[in-house]
């Protein structure tokens, strides 16, 4: 860990004004401190935002919820409004990390956690995401936990979050604040694919601070499922995860959403394919078609070919489970 300075502002504008190119905002620190200790990230300044007034969950005028960026993952998952109206989000959060980590980790920080690629974490190996241009040993190395969709020559890492998979399915909006004011970013546009800039995980501009996440009124509380497939029952990142949400009308699909985790550099959706299912019976044939569409163009590597078939099965299973209720 390199020496750094530390600031603890109390206001949002003050926090944003303190930002310099080698600064990092820190809240729960559950990922950033690891990255610093592992010599992956070397901020010269940490701006501690835990005193900022971003800890509330409030109802929005259009019937949704606005979640402050500093609401802890635990508080969010166990919030009565979330449990009742957005069970998919609650289940996705509780599928991630461990109780201790969820107590510390925040809503904003969860969005910004970085990949778990082994090479990214080992500063003594090449990695284009950590050190642009140094190479990607994962392509020909250990890639069982890596991407099958949306990867590039430069990077095959995946986004590790569960919460974000739920937020992607719910069409959340990310609210950010920078020196030039506030911006609203559709969840699908917040994270990005690696392309030729794998060092950039998201579309935040330098110094922009996530202040809130907004959930729309449409909550899929009747039919939803979060299915996480992993190598052990807890405290493991998803090999594949599926956030599935349905609105049904007597067994007929009125609306469907599916987001995938563990397969790409961002939560993976295909709204066009989802739209094609509207009006179809909620059965395995329809779910299989959506799975095929979501996985179209999937390319695996040496160790992770299995994820393609696994994802297909998981999508069908999660949607089938969602037909039964909120599971």
């Amino acid at each position, binding site marked *: 860990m390199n020496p750094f300075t530390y600031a603890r502002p109390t206001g949002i504008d003050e926090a944003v004004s303190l930002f310099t190119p080698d600064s990092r905002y820190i809240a729960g620190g559950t990922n950033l401190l690891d990255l610093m200790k592992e010599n992956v990230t070397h901020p010269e300044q940490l701006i501690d935002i835990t005193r900022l007034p971003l800890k509330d969950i409030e109802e929005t005028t259009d019937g949704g919820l606005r979640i402050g960026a500093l609401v802890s993952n635990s508080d969010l998952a166990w919030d009565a409004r979330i449990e009742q109206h957005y069970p998919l989000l609650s289940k996705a959060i509780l599928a991630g990390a461990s109780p201790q980590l969820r107590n510390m980790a925040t809503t904003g920080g969860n969005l910004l956690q970085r990949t778990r690629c082994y090479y990214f974490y080992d500063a003594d190996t090449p990695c284009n995401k950590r050190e642009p241009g140094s190479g990607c040993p994962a392509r020909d190395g250990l890639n069982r936990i890596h991407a099958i969709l949306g990867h590039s020559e430069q990077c095959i890492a995946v986004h590790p979050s569960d919460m974000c998979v739920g937020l992607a399915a719910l069409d959340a909006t990310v609210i950010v604040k920078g020196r030039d004011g506030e911006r609203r970013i559709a969840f699908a546009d917040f994270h990005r694919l690696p392309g030729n800039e794998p060092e950039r995980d998201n579309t935040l501009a330098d110094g922009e601070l996530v202040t809130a996440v907004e959930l729309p009124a449409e909550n899929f509380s009747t039919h939803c499922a979060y*299915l996480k*497939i992993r190598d*052990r029952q807890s405290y493991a990142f998803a090999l594949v995860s599926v956030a599935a949400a349905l609105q049904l009308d007597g067994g007929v699909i009125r609306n469907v959403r599916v987001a995938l985790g563990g397969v790409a550099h961002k939560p993976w959706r295909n709204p066009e394919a989802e739209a094609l299912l509207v009006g179809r019976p909620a059965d395995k044939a329809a779910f299989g078609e959506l799975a095929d569409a979501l996985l179209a163009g999937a390319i695996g590597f040496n160790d992770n070919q299995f994820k393609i078939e696994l994802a297909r099965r998981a999508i069908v299973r999660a949607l089938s489970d969602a037909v039964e209720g909120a599971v």
Partner: protein
Amino acid sequence: MTVKTSPVGKPLDRVDGPMKVQGQAKYAGEFPLPGLLYGHIVNSTIARGRILHIDTRAAEAVPGIEAVLTHENRPPIASYDKPYEDDDAADGSPFRPLFNDRILYNSQPIALVVGESLELARYAASLIKVEYQTEEHATDLLTNLDQMSTAPADLPGPRGDAKQALNNAAVKVEVQYTTPVEHHNPMEPHASTVHYLPDGTLEVYDKTQGVQNCMRYLEDVFDMEGQIRILTPFVGGAFGSGLRPQHQLPLAVMAALKLKRSVRVSFARQQMFTFGYRPRSIQRLTMGASSDGQLQAIYHQAIAQTSRFEDYTEQQVEWSGMLYKCPNVTLDYQLVPLDVYTPLDMRAPGGTIGVYALECAMDELAYAANIDPVELRQKNFTDFNANEGKPYSSKALLECYEQGAERFGWSKRTMAPRSMQDGHQLIGWGMATGMWEAMQMPASAKACIDATGKLIVSSATTDIGTGTYTVMTQIAAEAMGFPMDQVEFKLGDSNMAKAPLQGGSFTVSSVGSAVQKACQELRMKLLDTVQQTPASPFSGKTPDEIDFADGWLFIKDAPEQRVKLTDIAAETGALEVEASVEPGEVRDGYATGTHSAVFVEVKVDEDTGMVKVSRVVSAVAAGRVVNPKTASNQIMGGVVWGVSQALHEETQMDHNLGRFMNHSLAEYHIPVQADIGDIDVIFVEEHDEIVNALGSKGVGEIGIVGVAAAVSNAIFHATGKRVRDLPVTLDKLM
């Protein structure tokens, strides 16, 4: 019995439990010392080659950094192999840290940065620049099989004619299993705190399973005979990782000698992957049986990796020659040297791998012959060890099968795979036999009565969390006839009476026997002493006719005739006895072992392949159990690790880089609480007067052996799939 109620055999709480839960038990990396400096190790980033240049200037320029040690400026160390050969060394040339510019494996220690704080040392270490001359490396066992040669192991020769018997066998299986590299990963990382004393001698708090092993190692490597004392009061798990001195120890000593200061060096978790491990292996088995399931022949070959500088061997194949009755057996063991560090004993070394393969093959044979897996094993039971040509001193394995099967409900099992489904969950029941040796080593112990009348017993063993403090206190209390609270057992100091390494499940057998003998002799000596008094009422009394209570020695039939123990101690000076015990000659005519029958239920999701071990029954025969509570803890820990071996553990190496990559506990998976279902431990008591005077065989290893096979066999029963490559991850079940 000379005591009213013996504490031996009782499920007593750990005597060190309160200290541990209150945080008062100090571990090697926790002892505070005035002016202590902290070292951080720099590791190589290539697998093979030479260091051309290390630029340490930036690190040395950091305020608070006292030194950067490399092969160029370290203090003198021995150059020949002999001084580095510790009690658990493999054949060959032991690794010599910072000896020269050669890189023998990736992540080898190449420098030590020493500073006023750990954080500072770690930061300065990140500023060091190393220039290498890289050479081509080979780290993959599977692609280097042409390099294999016969292991320097003392295998039994061929028995009968396995080849011909296999040709004639009515039922045959020919299978290959592969097992991965695993690292020990005790919760407590290795650490050494070196106290530099004013006279230049060293007291070292070290995490080890052998304080005298580490003392001799340092004495020899640094030419400091009589100037080293090792202290290890507590160990936070070791599992074999502390059987050899690990490199943080000599590095910390180098820094202390160079700076004439006290120094601590601890491994970061990532650095726990930079020394010994369980070797990757290929196990090839061919088994033949008659149509009714009588074994006719076994061929078992193991191929395992080792380093280029040492030939690490363990008992991988011997089990196939001794566990069952089989007239024709051929065993073979090959090693492939690679550009890696030397493997290291890890819980039930060799047995964990070899019995896994043997017991999976037995299950495959059971299905080939259409015989119930338990019945097949019962049919082939033997109480004779054909490798050694000796009968077992005791082997209650049939009782283990019977009691384990009964508790598990095995009789309700249907033989066909995929025949026990419940919704999306495929249910599988599998079992396996476990086995470990019941060894005994020479050991000594000292017993004395202190000024308060308390019995103090000591030996230079350790307590790696197994309950040594507790069971030795029980054994001493029984042998002396004292209540538990009047006995204190001390360990973990190289100045104490000689003890072997704590490993191999032989601590109770070896040190326990010495403790027992020392206390029995002290009891005699006390009686002798009081008999010296003129007109002593104790004249002519035998040890059986006396007893102790509340600090008094008295005659059982005449309790009013008594002497206060503190008075004896005060009048005669300290009453002290040191006793040594060697394995008894009676053992020579027998083979000795612990055995188990492990029954496992798994639930496998039919779509996703996710496996959950919902329950395990382990029935263990290990002689007399000194403390059923701590012994049961040992078996449970072994079962959990067996589940881990079956489903989770694998240190993954990138062979392009020759480097282990999942070097953290987030990515190196062991089970979490949610992965473990019910574990039911049964002890099948054996009365064994041959194994040692205590009749106790030790339970440190037996808990893990066979578990991975039982899980794998259960998965086959659930899914109909034989996955012969550990760990059984869900992708292999798709």
